[in-house]
C-alpha cells in the first residue's frame, strides 16, 4: 500500500488481496479503518498507558509528575488496575451472553424446536456425568437437565465455587487458585461484584483489583470458553479435519453471496441447511440470474463453520478474512448480504456497504448499527424461517449487484487444512497423546505456542502475528492458532502441508510424517478454551502442572475486551503470555511489575510485552527451553 509519509504502518496489510482492495477503496472514495487510524494519530499517552480515570465528575484525572495522584487520591496503579478490570468485565459479559445463547439453543434443540440435533451424544453424556447428572437418561431429557445445571452455574452466587473449575482444572492449579482466593462462583454474580468494586472509591487496592481480574478470567476460561464450546460441539459437532479455502479470491461471481460475520454460528448453520435442501430458494436464485447460493465466513463465525466442514459447516463457501477485512470484503461489490452477530461488526462496514448494493442484517438482539434497518434477531425456535428470509433478502440484493460501483474480486486464495480439536488431534495421533509427548520429549518438537486472538493495524494488518508465527516455526515450535490470527495465517497459506517448508528441520520432518501443517487451526477465539483443555490433558498425562510445560501463549495483535479476559486467563493458567500491543497499564509501575514479574511466583504465568516479534520469539523459545530443562527433557 502507498505509505503517505513518515514511518507509520497503520495503512499496510500483510495480505496481497487486502493491499489490492485498499487501492480499490481509495479509488472509490471509501474510507476504511486503514485511513481512520492515521486520522486518530497521535493518540493520547494517558489513555495508552492506562492512567486516565473518567469514573467520577471530578475527572478526568491524569497521572503526571506534577499530579501523582487523582483528585480522590487514587494512584496510577489503582487507576490502571481498575480500568483493566472494567475492560475484562466487558469481555466476560459478552462471553456470558454467548453461553446463555448456547444454553437456550441446546434447550430448544432438545425439545425438537430447531433444525439442529444432538450431534455429539458422547460429549453430552460425558459432561452431564461430570456435573453429577444421571447420564443414562434419554439424550434429549439429559440435554434439558444439562441446560438447567449450566443456567444455575451461570447465575449462582460468588461464594459457591464453579463446578466446571473444580471438575476440569488440573489439581495443582486448583491448589494455587484456592490459595489466592480466586476460585470464582457464578460468572454473572462475579461480574456484579467486580463492577461494584471498580466503581469510584470502593476497591482502590491495585493488588486486590488484579486478583479479582484473575478470578474473572478463570470464570471466563471455564464458563465463557469451555462450557460454550462444549455446548456448541454437542449441537453442531466436534471439529473434524477438513479442507477449505481462504482469502477474498474465494468469492464466486456467479452466485448469490452471503457472508456470516461475527462469532456465533447458529444462524449461519441454518442458512447452510437451507442452501443445501431448499429447492424453491435455489430456483429463485436461478431466476434472478445466479448459478446458486453460497455462504462464506468472516472472522470467528467462519472459523466455527470451517472447523466442522463434515457436519454443521457442510457446504461452506470459504473464509474471507478477519476483523480488518470486513470493510474490504464489502468493497469487492460481490457480497450481497452480511449477517452480523455479537461483536466486531464495525460502523465502517456500513460506510462501505453504502457504496454498494450490499445489505447488512443483524442476527443478534444485542447488535444494532446506525443505518441498518434489517434486524432478524436469532431465535432458536424460528431460525429455519429466519434463514429462508435471509436468503430471500440476499437474492433480492443480488439483483442490484454491480449497479452502484463495479465488482472487483482480487484473485488471491489459499488452501486451508482446518478442524483441529482435542478429539481430532487424538484421531491423528492414533487415540492417545503419547506420540505427541514422545516427539516433544525427544525434542523433535521443542514446544507448543498458541498464537491467538485478534488482528490490529497498529503495526500493519497481521504483520506482528505472521512474523511471530514464522519465527516460532523456524525454532521447531509447533504453533496453534485461534481467532482472527487463524484467518490471517490461513490467507498466507500457513495451514497447508506446503507451509512445513517454513519450519525448522525437526518440526518439518515430524509434521510431514504425520501429514499435518505446522500451524494447527483450533478455530475461533472462543476455541482458546480448547487449547486450555489440550494443555490440561498434556499436563495430566505427564503428572505435572500446566506451568511446568514447554508451552507459551501469545496474542500479538489483541484488540478488544474478550481478548483481555483470555489474556489474563492464560496468566492465571500458568503460561508465559506474550501480548501486543502493550496493554494499557504501562503508566502504572506496580501493576506492570505484578503482571510481568511477580505473577510468576503466584500462578507460574506472566506477561511479556516485547513488541519486536523476533525478540518475542526468542523470549518464548528461551521460556520453552527453561521448562524443558526443568522437566529434564
Amino acid at each position, binding site marked *: 500500500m502507498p505509505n503517505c509519509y*513518515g*514511518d*507509520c504502518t497503520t495503512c499496510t496489510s500483510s495480505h496481497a488481496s487486502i493491499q489490492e482492495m485498499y487501492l480499490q477503496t481509495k479509488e472509490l472514495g471509501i474510507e476504511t479503518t486503514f485511513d481512520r487510524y492515521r486520522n486518530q*494519530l*497521535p*493518540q*493520547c*499517552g*494517558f489513555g495508552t498507558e492506562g492512567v486516565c480515570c473518567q469514573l467520577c465528575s471530578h475527572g478526568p484525572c*491524569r497521572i*503526571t*509528575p*506534577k*499530579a501523582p495522584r487523582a483528585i480522590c487520591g487514587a494512584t496510577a496503579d489503582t487507576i490502571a488496575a481498575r480500568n483493566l478490570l472494567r475492560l475484562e468485565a466487558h469481555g466476560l459479559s459478552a462471553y456470558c451472553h454467548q453461553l446463555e445463547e448456547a444454553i437456550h439453543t441446546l434447550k430448544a434443540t432438545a425439545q425438537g424446536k430447531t433444525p439442529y440435533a444432538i450431534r455429539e451424544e458422547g460429549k453430552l453424556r460425558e459432561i452431564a456425568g461430570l456435573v453429577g447428572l444421571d447420564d443414562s437418561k434419554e439424550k434429549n431429557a439429559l440435554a434439558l437437565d444439562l441446560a438447567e445445571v449450566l443456567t444455575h452455574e451461570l447465575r449462582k452466587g460468588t461464594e459457591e465455587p464453579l463446578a466446571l473449575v473444580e471438575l476440569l482444572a488440573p489439581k495443582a492449579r486448583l491448589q494455587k487458585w484456592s490459595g489466592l482466593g480466586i476460585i470464582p462462583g457464578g460468572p454473572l454474580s462475579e461480574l456484579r461484584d467486580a463492577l461494584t468494586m471498580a466503581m469510584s472509591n470502593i476497591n482502590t487496592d491495585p493488588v486486590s483489583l488484579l486478583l479479582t481480574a484473575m478470578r474473572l478470567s478463570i470464570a471466563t476460561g471455564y464458563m465463557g470458553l469451555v462450557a460454550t464450546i462444549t455446548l456448541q460441539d454437542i449441537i453442531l459437532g466436534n471439529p473434524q479435519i477438513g479442507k477449505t479455502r481462504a482469502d477474498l479470491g474465494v468469492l464466486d461471481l456467479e452466485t448469490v453471496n452471503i457472508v456470516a460475520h461475527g462469532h456465533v454460528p447458529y444462524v449461519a448453520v441454518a442458512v447452510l441447511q437451507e442452501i443445501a435442501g431448499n429447492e424453491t430458494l435455489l430456483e429463485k436464485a436461478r431466476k434472478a440470474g445466479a448459478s446458486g447460493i453460497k455462504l462464506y465466513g468472516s472472522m470467528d463465525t467462519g472459523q466455527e463453520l470451517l472447523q466442522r466442514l463434515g457436519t454443521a459447516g457442510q457446504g461452506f463457501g470459504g473464509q474471507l478474512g478477519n476483523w480488518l477485512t470486513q470493510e474490504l470484503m464489502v468493497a469487492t461489490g460481490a457480497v450481497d448480504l452480511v449477517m452480523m452477530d455479537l461483536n466486531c461488526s464495525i460502523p465502517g462496514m456500513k460506510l462501505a456497504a453504502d457504496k454498494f448494493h450490499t445489505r447488512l442484517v443483524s442476527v443478534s438482539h444485542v447488535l444494532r448499527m446506525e443505518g441498518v434497518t434489517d434486524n432478524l434477531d436469532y431465535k432458536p425456535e424460528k431460525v429455519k424461517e429466519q434463514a429462508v428470509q435471509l436468503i430471500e433478502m440476499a437474492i433480492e440484493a443480488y439483483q442490484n449487484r454491480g449497479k452502484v460501483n463495479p465488482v472487483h474480486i482480487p484473485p488471491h486464495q489459499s488452501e486451508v487444512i482446518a478442524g483441529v480439536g482435542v478429539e481430532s488431534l487424538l484421531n491423528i495421533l492414533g487415540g492417545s497423546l503419547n506420540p505427541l509427548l514422545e516427539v516433544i520429549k525427544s525434542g523433535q518438537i521443542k514446544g507448543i505456542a498458541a498464537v491467538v486472538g485478534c488482528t490490529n493495524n497498529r503495526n500493519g494488518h497481521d504483520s506482528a502475528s505472521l512474523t511471530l508465527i514464522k519465527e516460532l516455526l523456524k525454532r521447531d515450535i509447533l504453533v496453534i492458532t485461534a481467532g482472527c490470527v487463524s484467518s490471517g495465517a490461513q490467507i498466507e497459506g500457513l495451514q497447508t502441508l506446503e507451509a512445513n517448508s517454513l519450519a525448522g528441520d525437526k518440526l518439518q520432518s515430524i509434521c510431514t510424517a504425520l501429514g499435518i501443517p505446522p500451524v494447527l487451526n483450533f478455530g475461533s477465539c472462543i476455541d482458546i478454551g480448547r487449547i486450555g483443555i489440550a494443555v490440561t490433558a498434556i499436563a495430566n498425562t505427564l503428572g505435572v502442572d500446566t506451568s511446568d510445560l514447554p508451552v507459551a501463549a501469545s496474542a500479538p495483535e489483541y484488540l478488544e475486551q474478550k481478548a483481555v479476559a483470555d489474556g489474563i486467563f492464560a496468566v492465571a493458567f500458568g503460561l508465559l503470555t506474550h501480548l501486543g500491543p502493550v496493554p494499557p497499564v504501562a503508566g502504572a509501575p506496580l501493576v506492570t511489575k505484578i503482571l510481568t514479574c511477580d505473577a510468576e511466583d503466584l500462578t507460574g504465568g506472566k506477561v511479556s510485552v516485547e513488541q519486536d516479534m523476533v525478540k518475542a520469539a526468542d523470549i518464548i523459545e528461551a521460556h520453552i527451553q527453561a521448562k524443558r530443562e526443568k522437566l529434564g527433557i
Partner: protein
Amino acid sequence: MKRIFVIKEKCTACLNCVVACQKSHAGSDFYAPIRDIEPGRIYIQAVGASPVPLVCMHCEEPACVKACITGAMRKDPDSGIVSNEFTPGKCVGCWMCVMACPYGVISPKAEHGKKMAIKCDLCMKRNGPACIESCPTGAIVYMEEAEFADYKQCLAAVNSI
C-alpha cells in the same frame, strides 16, 4: 517577547492544548461540540508513535507576512504578535501564507463561504495563551527567550545526572 516553546519529550499527545485553543477562539458557547467550532491553532503531529507539537514562532521576519498578497498578515510592532486579525476583512483566503510558513502552523478555514487563514495569535484577547494553561505535562511553556534558555539549561542539567 514571550513565545510558546516546546519540550517535545514531555508531550503525551492528549490534545488538551488543541481543545483549549479551539475553545478560547470560539466565543462563549461552552456546550458546542469542539469539532464544530474551528480548527486548532496549535498542532500535534505523529511521527510513528511519537507526538510532535507544532506552534507558531511569531518570527522576526515572518515568511507568512512576506507572502501575504493583501497585506492582511502583519507583525505587530509593539507585541511582536504575527496575525491577520489586526486587519479585519483583508484576508481573502489565498493560502499563500499556508504555503510559505516553514513550520506548517497556518490553517485554512472556510465559514459561511468566507475563506480566511487562521493561526496562533498568542490569545491576544485573553490573558496569556490558553494552550499553555491546559498542558498537564509542561510540554509547552510560555516564556521570554532568555528565560526559556535558562529553563532548557536546567532540564539539560537534570537529564545529565
